[in-house]
């Protein structure tokens, strides 16, 4: 079964660092980009950016550039989303999603999603 399994909920204080994970299984991990998507409480989905597991090249939405980093460990087919200094406004549910390129035009949908990781930042 193709799936993405994310790490569990986190409660942190402002200024702390955090890394959450997304483990892929059932497919060739390096052949599909991994995107990260944020859902703030009561709000919609926001695309944060994506990483190519084959070479760790990352593409960030300007709203998140410089505030988060993406990484992968292909030996354990896991992608990571990391913060060096959390803010209260980072409180949200974070999803990883597999990129699905279905044609040669570069159109990308997200066909497999992780279950989400709730991050709570509070003093």
């Amino acid at each position, binding site marked *: 079964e193709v799936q993405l399994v994310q790490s569990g909920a986190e409660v942190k204080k402002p200024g702390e660092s955090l890394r959450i994970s997304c483990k892929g299984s059932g497919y060739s991990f390096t052949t599909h980009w991994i*995107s990260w*998507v944020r859902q703030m409480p009561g709000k*919609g*989905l*926001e*695309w944060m950016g*994506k990483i190519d597991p084959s070479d760790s090249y990352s*593409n960030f*939405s*300007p709203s998140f550039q410089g505030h988060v980093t993406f990484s992968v460990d292909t030996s354990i087919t896991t992608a990571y989303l990391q913060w060096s200094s959390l803010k209260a406004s980072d409180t949200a*549910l974070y*999803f990883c*999603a597999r990129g*699905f390129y*279905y*044609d040669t*035009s*570069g*159109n*990308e*949908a*997200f*066909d497999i*999603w*992780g*279950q*989400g990781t709730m991050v709570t930042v509070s003093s």
Partner: protein
Amino acid sequence: QSVLTQPPSVSGAPGERVTISCTGSSSNIGTSHDVHWYQHFPGKAPKLLIYGSTNRPSGVPDRFSGSKSGTSASLAITGLQAEDEADYYCQSYDSRLSDSVFGGGTKLTVL
């Protein structure tokens, strides 16, 4: 403010047909960029319903269909069922932002 505009809510009775619109611009839906639709139950993983504006992944009932025209797209759900009550999001790519973008989401209520 989302780049793609969806109605905040729609509703329908069991068995009815509802549509959810997704309005964009010339830098996203209005170009060659396709629209994708997701069904999301709160606290769960979103599910891909429609990709490439009109295509259903295997396992998605044919009650769900997508269309695209100009700078807008629509998701239609026929034979509405209670279990369809969820949030629905459209997604595309924006050439000006060089980003994937989501609509603000539409909450479907089955009366």
